[in-house]
């Protein structure tokens, strides 16, 4: 008698034991709800998806409870140990038809809101802003089409946190050096492609996920109803950095957006001026180290030793201690047939000058060479 109850107890509750277990392990009261279910998000699309998800979920729960209740009842009552004698029925056309037709009808009911939600999700028409999103190994490039504003957005969590040398910050693996900025209550169209392998741009809070496919363009859209900073992820295996290229979007008031965009355009012009400026060795080394850690260290390591043969060492390398022009060529144009990307389009002249200076003088390379932004500019022009 007790064995039967115990058995039932354990069978029913084993998976449910997790919930109290979970609640007790979570330090933050209130956040446990966030890590149990999908977010309703901040767009009409994300809300539609959430509502659909919950409807289907509850239908499944109800069906499951009914079906399992019948099964558990049977397991308790129809037992040989209780002396129950087996019946002998083994078919019924009526019943078969019933439990074919009824589920089919339930499915049709589910299909209606699903169809509506999908049609809405696909409607990219009449957007006010077009943003091109390009997936790189392992970062995103954003381009505000028609505005001449573009930048790279890469993970800003330091390696030291990833490799457990420093405590992890609150937005661990979900912070970038430069987020995408869009205005609230504005339909934004995203044109998504990739530079190398397939990536996928996923903004959970917007209900947006679209694959980034090299050679092809995909489009999707979002109209965000609430300002804030939202974090998403790359959602298609793209190599070793798949978990290390988050998406961060800052949604701001429309006037703030206009101001920001104006600033970015001005900064592009200012960058062109900065290109003329002469920096000191110390300024270049400091900036260069920052750029290096952000854009080079993932492959070449913070200590410059790389991981040969795929990722050569820069410390003591012929490239970093040899002709500056050749060094520039490698960094600006990349190396075809290898994993070395062309950073000429990804980094500004100032950043390029700084990182080259850094590479040529760090880790004992000590060439004493100083590369100025104008050198980079001339190199690019003069080719």
């Amino acid at each position, binding site marked *: 008698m007790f064995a039967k109850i115990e058995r039932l107890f354990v069978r029913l509750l084993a998976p449910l034991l997790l919930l109290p277990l979970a609640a007790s392990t979570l330090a933050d009261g209130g956040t446990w709800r966030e890590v149990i279910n999908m977010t309703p998000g901040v767009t009409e699309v994300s809300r539609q998806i959430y509502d659909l998800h919950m409807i289907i979920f509850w239908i499944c729960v109800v069906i499951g409870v009914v079906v399992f209740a019948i099964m558990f009842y049977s397991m308790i009552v129809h037992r040989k140990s209780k002396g129950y004698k087996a019946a002998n*029925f083994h078919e019924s056309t009526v019943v078969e038809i019933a439990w074919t037709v009824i589920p089919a009808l339930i499915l049709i009911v589910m299909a209606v809101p699903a169809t509506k939600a999908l049609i809405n999700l696909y409607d990219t028409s009449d957007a006010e802003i077009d943003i091109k999103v390009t997936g790189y190994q392992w970062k995103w490039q954003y381009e505000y089409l028609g505005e001449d504003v573009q930048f790279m957005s890469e993970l800003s969590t330091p390696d030291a946190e990833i490799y457990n040398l420093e405590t992890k910050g609150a937005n661990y693996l979900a912070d970038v050096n430069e987020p995408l900025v869009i205005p609230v209550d504005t339909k934004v169209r995203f044109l998504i492609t990739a530079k190398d392998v397939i990536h996928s741009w996923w903004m959970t809070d917007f209900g947006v996920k679209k694959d980034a496919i090299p050679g092809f363009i995909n489009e999707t859209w979002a109209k965000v109803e609430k300002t804030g900073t939202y974090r998403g992820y790359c959602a298609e295996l793209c190599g070793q950095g798949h978990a290390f290229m988050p998406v961060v979007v800052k949604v701001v008031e429309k006037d703030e957006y206009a101001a920001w965009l104006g600033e970015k355009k001005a900064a592009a012009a200012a960058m062109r001026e900065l290109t003329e400026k002469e920096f000191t060795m110390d300024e270049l080394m400091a900036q260069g180290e920052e750029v290096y850690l952000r854009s080079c260290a993932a492959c070449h390591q913070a200590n410059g030793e790389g991981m040969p043969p795929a990722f050569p060492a820069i410390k003591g390398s012929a490239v970093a201690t040899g002709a500056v022009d050749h060094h520039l060529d490698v960094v600006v144009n990349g190396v075809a047939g290898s994993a070395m990307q062309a950073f000429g389009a990804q980094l500004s002249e100032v950043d390029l000058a700084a990182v080259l200076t850094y590479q040529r003088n760090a880790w004992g390379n000590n060439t004493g060479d100083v590369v100025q932004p104008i050198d980079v500019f001339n190199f690019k022009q003069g080719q």
Partner: protein
Amino acid sequence: MAHGPAKGIGRWLFTTNHKDIGTLYLWFSFAMFLLGGFFAMVIRAELFQPGMQIIRPEFFNQMTTMHGLVMVFGAIMPAFVGLANWMIPLQIGAPDMALPRMNNLSFWILPFAFAILASTLFMEGGAPNFGWTFYAPLSTTYAPDTVNYFIFGVHIMGASSIMGSINIIATVLNMRAPGMTMMKMPLFVWTWLITAFLLIAVMPVLAGAVTMMLMDINFGTSFFDAAGGGDPVLFQHVFWFFGHPEVYIIILPAFGVISAIIPTFSRKPLFGYSSMVYATAAIAFLSFIVWAHHMFTVGMPLTGELYFMYATMLIAVPTGVKVFNWIATMFQGAMTFETPMLFAIAFVILFTIGGFTGLMLSIAPSDIQYHDTYFVVAHFHYVMVAGAVFSGTAAVYYWLPKWCGRMYNETMGKLQFWVAFIGFNITFFPQHFLGLAGMPRRYADYSLQFADWNMVSSVGAFIYGAAQLLFLYNVIATIVAGKPVSEPKTWEGAEGLEWTVATPAPYHTFSTPPEVK
């Protein structure tokens, strides 16, 4: 005329006996299950906490890839082929499989293929690291050099499956005992017959996909390379045209096993035999026309996406029919709960949960949020582990006495069941939460809000791993020192020709066909 088995290692290398070959497949699949399980332990150990503690992300990608490949192609598929080899001739009253020598070849190329695949871990560039679904161009232009060994291995595994399927179809269609009409065959034979047709249809498509990959990588073609007019999305279509029927290939034989075990321990015939056959055929047919539900975020036009959503939702109908029929079999039976029955009941519950999450995934707009997250990982582990693996485990406990003439220890069997059941659920139930909360799959590292469930999941994984070692112990202990049994009909409620031969089953059975009424 009949003679006993040969002696020594030669017996195993050259055997054409379906029982021996079944045994070989089963042991091989279990070894692969432990290997794939070891990779899973590495994955869960690394994911125990945020940050990279044990391995680097590049190696993590190798672990996830190899875990998937080994489990799907090395563990689960050969396990059910092993069950097919042992049981189909016995269940239809045939003396052996139709093509015994090809049967031997079908098995022996597998250890060869997996030795090659496993050895890539030690080669320069590392093992395949592009996921078991190996999308181009990550698996072509950006693949490590070992991709060619991977392609070679896949070709060999495919050849093994195709040959095995031809054997099964020929055996079932041509060698049934007189009186055993198609609609008198046990469900396990029916599900394998249908699975074998699926295999012949789609394994060559997989071979085509990897051949096109091989050509793109080594011979300058552009099937999947946009630069030459090709398309990475073509790869996904070809792969999933194989891939979706593949998951039904994995589960249909498992359905057949459950359809044998539940009637036995309910002491009641299977409810709705013909419906079960038609439902299996319906599932097999539908499996060919739903593949792009794996590609809902690829940029398909609206009409395409709607079609694949509707078609996929439909599969719930015949699958539901099967679940209802199993429960109707139990209902008003006189049940006992030996270990095979525990696993079978757990299958019904947990596979149904996996089926529900599958239904949720089929809803295309919702899939925008589920795709490539741990919600998908949870779904397929519920159907493949709590589904296929539990069914395979049930089959072993169920038929082991017939195979070796010894009974397993019932207490140990039940213990192994509970450790597996609890470990499995602790591992995979939280992964639903992780996926819904936003954790993508194939992530070597994750943001802090995912830490708690990951820790729980990893703990569960180690419990589940322990359950497998316990299973190994149970099987070996039974074979070596289990209580001898000699009743042809081991289980009171068992029906079928396999329960009419001696226990353990003689090396040659049904040299003269039995009478089937």
